[in-house]
């Protein structure tokens, strides 16, 4: 049983302040394990309410080129799932609710071969909880295929953040939100991650359809790259989820972490102002 705060507490706080929460994403191990910790701390410090730590994965079907490039750099740097846990631990220590976002196989395979009979899922949940993690976002696991994870998350009192999409039927949205804990992740465009210049007009109706089924906060990804877009989304959503733009800030400063961190801070502040402007 974890005693880590659920992400929902951060959404509650934001709602109490009459604004949306800012959810920031960065892959663990990018630009290095230590660097990712440092960077995320800057994001927390400059206004992110919730942190998503990505686990880099060899076959990221949902990621756009920006995040994939960062994840690949992390993989080439030798990132391991145990490193992810270390990053979670360091970030959670700041007090910001910290969730992991990962493709499914590293979870299922956590701790080695399934042929040994051990359940990677159970072990992953236990280790995540003891590292201070709030839960897991599972981009390629839907509740109907997620029985084992749901059981383990419930066992360890972890957030289960599943995704809804513009193409989801009402039935599926209801089924998905019923299985969620923490918040619901609304993917705002039919497409992949990546910063865009205008936000999707698919997002608002999706949030509305989602809210019909749940009282959980609804965060909206993907494609936000500045405070104005954040403000726009914050006008109808409970959380604004930003990923590629953070990654880009660091990618734009190769071999210059201080420069990257400065850019990251400026971007976070712009976005944090945005979610307060709505």
């Amino acid at each position, binding site marked *: 049983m974890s005693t880590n705060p659920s992400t929902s507490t951060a959404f509650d706080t934001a709602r109490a302040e009459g604004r949306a929460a800012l959810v920031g994403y960065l892959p663990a191990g990018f630009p290095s394990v230590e660097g990712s910790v440092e960077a995320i701390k800057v994001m927390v410090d400059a206004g992110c309410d919730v942190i998503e730590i990505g686990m880099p*994965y060899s*076959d990221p079907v949902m990621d756009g*080129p920006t995040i*994939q490039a960062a994840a690949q750099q992390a993989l080439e740097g030798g990132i391991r*799932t145990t490193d992810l846990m270390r990053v979670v631990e360091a970030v959670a220590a700041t007090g910001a609710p910290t969730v992991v976002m990962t493709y499914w*196989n590293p979870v*299922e*395979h956590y701790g080695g071969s399934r042929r040994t009979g051990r359940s990677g899922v159970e072990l992953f949940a236990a280790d995540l909880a003891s590292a201070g993690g709030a839960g897991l976002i599972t981009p390629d696991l839907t509740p109907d295929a997620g029985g084992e994870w749901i059981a383990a998350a419930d066992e360890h009192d972890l957030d289960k953040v599943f995704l809804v999409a513009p193409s989801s039927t009402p039935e599926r949205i209801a089924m998905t939100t019923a299985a969620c804990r923490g918040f619901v992740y609304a993917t705002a465009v039919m497409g992949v991650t990546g910063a865009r210049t205008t936000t999707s007009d698919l997002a608002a109706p999706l949030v509305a359809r989602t809210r019909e089924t749940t009282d959980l906060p609804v965060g909206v990804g993907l494609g936000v790259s500045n405070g104005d877009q954040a403000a726009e989304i914050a006008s109808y959503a409970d959380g604004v989820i930003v990923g590629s733009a953070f990654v880009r800030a660091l990618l734009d400063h190769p071999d210059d972490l201080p420069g990257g961190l400065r850019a990251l801070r400026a971007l976070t502040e712009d976005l944090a102002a945005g979610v307060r402007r709505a």
Partner: protein
Amino acid sequence: MSDTQVSRYEADELGFFGEDWGGRFMPEALVAALDELTDAWRDAMADPEFVAAFEKICREYAGAPSLLYHAERLSAQVGARVLLKREDLNHTGAHKIRNVLGQALLTQRMGKPRVIAETGAGQHGVASATAAAYFGLDCTVYMGAVDTRRQALNVARMHLLGAKVIPVESGSATLKDAINEALRDWVASVDQTAYLFGTAAGPHPFPSMVRDFTRGIGDEARQQCLDQYGVLPDAIAACVGGGSNAIGLFAAFLDDDSVEIHGFEPGGDGVETGRHAATIHAGDTGVLHGARTYVLQDEDGQTVESHSISAGLDYPGVGPQHAHLAAIGRATYAPVTDAQAMDALALLSRTEGIIPAIESAHAIHGGLEVARRLGAERGPDATVVINLSGRGDKDMGTAIEWFGLGDPDKVTAEPVGDPDTDPRAEDAEA
């Protein structure tokens, strides 16, 4: 096909074979598309008109039924009756045309004007471009940038056939990155687009759907064997990459308990070297490209690179129905090394005048071993059907390198690659 029965070998509603294998580990954004596809496929397979239209195209355009050929000289050598299912004679030279024609016909039925596909060495890309040309569909093929450079001939084929080829620069710029990129395209374009998946892997319904479109291989072979020899084969054999040709052959025989079923996986340099793609034999359970199956992966569940001389088998996953068949023992899967496959390629070429695809040469090697054993046990009427999934023309560059033909300026006056000796031990100039 119309009389496919729901048997203990079928996947359940969620796409799981035997509860554990397959399923659909996919972004929610694609679930509606996969559901739509599942419905359309179920509906089509139950519609005699669709089934008839598919069979007609296979017959009148692709050349089905492919021959079941009695390889008499090979049979004499191994002491058993060796029958080759000649998918190499299909239009475009492999079993793959069946799958793409089925999926393209379904696309047309669904009213979508565009198809996308991933391709590794280019075989499935060429097949998809062919089917798209046939049905007048717009076609985009994703192909790793490394592969577009290695396989310029296949890129040219796709261009001639009217397809767009998009070189994928991300990741390792090979097959799995092309799959990722194609899935991304699909997420953003599902309304207009069908994704023609190249093998019997991936999320539900692909493993079952691709099997339904390739199962003509086995349905035909079973009937041909009965018609021509009055018996069922004692064993059947196929190579297993993603598993489409194998499952296409196996499906018809699953309920024939007397028939041994053998899949042969790419053993690369030898499983013990770690440089192989023998996913079932030496991989570990995991989730890859939307299905739970056997995967070549490291301790953290990161996919590791596979190795095979055969581009078409060089895939770190495998179709989930094969994982299931292996797990329940209905089929056995064994590795065949690069060297064994190339020997089999030379043997078949020289003995029967048929140059097989290197993929298929894996099945030839493995199938002949099975035939030898069964011949010894049961006599020369023991019958083994081997799926000759494709022709070897595409593989001549590899064969030239492997057998040391080397410099075309120094062509030799003697045949090379004597199957009785280690081909690499020979001097090409001899």
